[in-house]
């Protein structure tokens, strides 16, 4: 694997505000990387700097080993899919796709052949002559994709490409984008605020916040080993609590809102210190409350049941905080097998399912 695009200490400041703060990252050839973060975290600015639309205040951008920091967008071997697609309204779908080839001086016949090929790749070969306003949102999205990949860029940049589509279409396009990535073998860098999108499509997710990278890793890695409370809360759901790690009779113990739990092994070194802990909703099990008190159990009151088909999300009131727990719905007893709202419930959490998270200033 070779590095295709790389940033070195890339910084963008708008007056006193720092949009992108000293980011160094490198992307391998053929990788599907997603920049994930809430709006204003600097992910779009970073992407626009890669495309050449924003000038970095500091730092360099290397593309295939060459410094392209000062190269204008028209001379960079990267292409962008814009959030609003930016299709030229006065040109047909086919001519939109062929635009980048035409400006490079390619013969007309070849331009048409290549644009047809690119449109076929996104399943729109029969809409060559359609004007953009005659196309549906999903079709416009595909034309924008075809237009960006027809020039075979070294890197394809996608700025929230699915945000304008409705939920069903978005899911379908996620799969198609993933397929397209495999089919054309280009490097994709996608920006999104939607964690599902990031988890489904990417080889690697880079979580950003306040212009900095918080954590970077495979979707599975990020889900299972979030480094900070922020990542844990942003990717999937996490029940968070803070506790001091104490040693009682040779065992590490933590307390979750007053209820004792066996501490995970990873926290052994933190003995005597405060730390942030969390567990995923599906990692807790509902146990019958009538049983004798047992270890690793939290007791609370069922506040709400959200039906999700094969599972149900239980909202459990623990006094100061509400936790969510996903439990499977058995085929035999169905929803009626679940406790009623207002019932006391007990949750079993095994210590190895408790994550130890780094503290982070929230705000």
């Amino acid at each position, binding site marked *: 694997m070779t590095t295709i695009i790389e940033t070195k200490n890339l910084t963008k400041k708008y007056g006193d505000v720092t949009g992108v703060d000293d980011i160094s990252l490198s992307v391998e050839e053929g990788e599907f990387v997603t920049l994930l973060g809430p709006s204003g975290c600097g992910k779009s600015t970073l992407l626009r700097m890669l*495309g*050449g*639309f924003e000038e970095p205040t500091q730092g360099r951008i290397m593309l295939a080993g060459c410094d392209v920091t000062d190269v*204008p*967008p*028209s*001379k960079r071997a*990267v*292409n*962008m899919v*814009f*959030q*609003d697609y*930016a299709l*030229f*309204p*006065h040109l047909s779908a086919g001519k939109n796709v062929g*635009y*980048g080839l035409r*400006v*490079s001086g390619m013969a007309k016949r070849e331009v048409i052949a290549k644009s047809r090929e690119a449109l076929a790749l996104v399943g729109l070969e029969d809409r060559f002559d359609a*004007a*953009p*306003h*005659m196309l549906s949102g999903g079709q416009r999205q595909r034309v924008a994709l075809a*237009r*960006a990949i027809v*020039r075979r860029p070294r890197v394809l940049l996608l700025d929230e490409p699915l945000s304008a589509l409705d939920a069903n279409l978005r899911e379908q396009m996620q799969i198609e984008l993933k397929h397209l990535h495999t089919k054309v073998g280009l490097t994709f860098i996608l920006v999104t605020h939607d964690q599902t999108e990031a988890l489904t499509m990417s080889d690697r997710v880079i979580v950003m916040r306040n212009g900095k990278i918080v954590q970077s890793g495979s979707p599975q890695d990020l889900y299972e080993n979030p480094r900070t409370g922020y990542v844990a809360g942003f990717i999937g759901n996490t029940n968070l609590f803070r506790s001091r790690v104490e040693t009682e009779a040779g065992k590490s113990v933590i307390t979750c809102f007053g209820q004792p739990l066996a501490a995970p092994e990873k926290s052994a070194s933190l003995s005597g210190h405060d730390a942030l802990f969390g567990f995923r909703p599906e990692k807790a099990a509902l146990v019958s409350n009538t049983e004798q008190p047992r270890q690793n159990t939290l007791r609370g009151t069922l506040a709400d049941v959200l039906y999700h088909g094969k599972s149900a999300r239980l909202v459990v009131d623990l006094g100061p905080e509400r936790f969510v727990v996903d439990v499977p719905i058995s085929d035999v007893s169905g929803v009626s097998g679940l406790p009623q709202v207002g019932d006391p419930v007990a949750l079993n959490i095994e210590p190895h399912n408790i994550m130890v998270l780094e503290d982070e200033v929230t705000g």
Partner: protein
Amino acid sequence: MTQIAQERATPLPRKAAVQAERLSWMLGITAILGFLYLPIAVLVTFSFNTSRSLTWPMSGLTLDWYKKLASNDQLIDAFFNSVYVATSATSLTLIIGVPAAIALDRIDFPGKGLFRKLILLPIALPGIITGISMLILFRAIGFNLSLEAVIVGHATALLAVVVTQVYARLQRLPPSLAEASADLGASGLQTFFWVTLPNIRTAVIGSGMLAFTLSFDEIPVTFFLTGRDNTLPMYIWSTMRRGLTPEINAIGSLIVLMSAILIFLSVMLLRDKTKPKK
């Protein structure tokens, strides 16, 4: 019996009220249209009158006045002078105005707000002021009073028309279009001719037509800046001092016809093919 009569009676006045309302609307609209077009209708009608006097009823129909026009060299010269001035002034304003509007829209520079207001100022100034000040300037730098001086004078006043119209359209154009064009490898000029211009085309043509019309019938600035050459409105005005002639009616009718053709052309050109038809 009375009850039935009442039930029947109520819907009737209502219908009448609706009809009365409709009638009053029609009358109002007719009045407005009359206010706008009656003078023009009178002008056109009298241009076919055999008698010199403008009295009703007309004495007979004739095309004599139009024949007279065709042999009036002074008037024909004035007409072509006006076409020359209006065409040149319009071209000049477009060549300066469109890039100026793009600069205003896309580039940030110090004093941009002031620049925008200064460009708009000449349209608010009375033509007589523009005329006098340009006269003084041209005298001072030794630029001869001529049709060319008139062209420059018109262009200054009309620049505001073009810049406002084109700038307003550019503001509605997503900036991502130009970015996408650059992203796909187009140079600044290619982007302008292949993406920006086609998308502001209607504003450019529309403001150009308006500029042409305004320049074509302009008197105050022309009055100060023209040398020996006359433009059509100036010629009409000077002839009028010797009394209203049916010949003037004939020219007027021809100008109305020309305007109608221009309007038709602009409607045809401005028809937006990219808009969905409903």
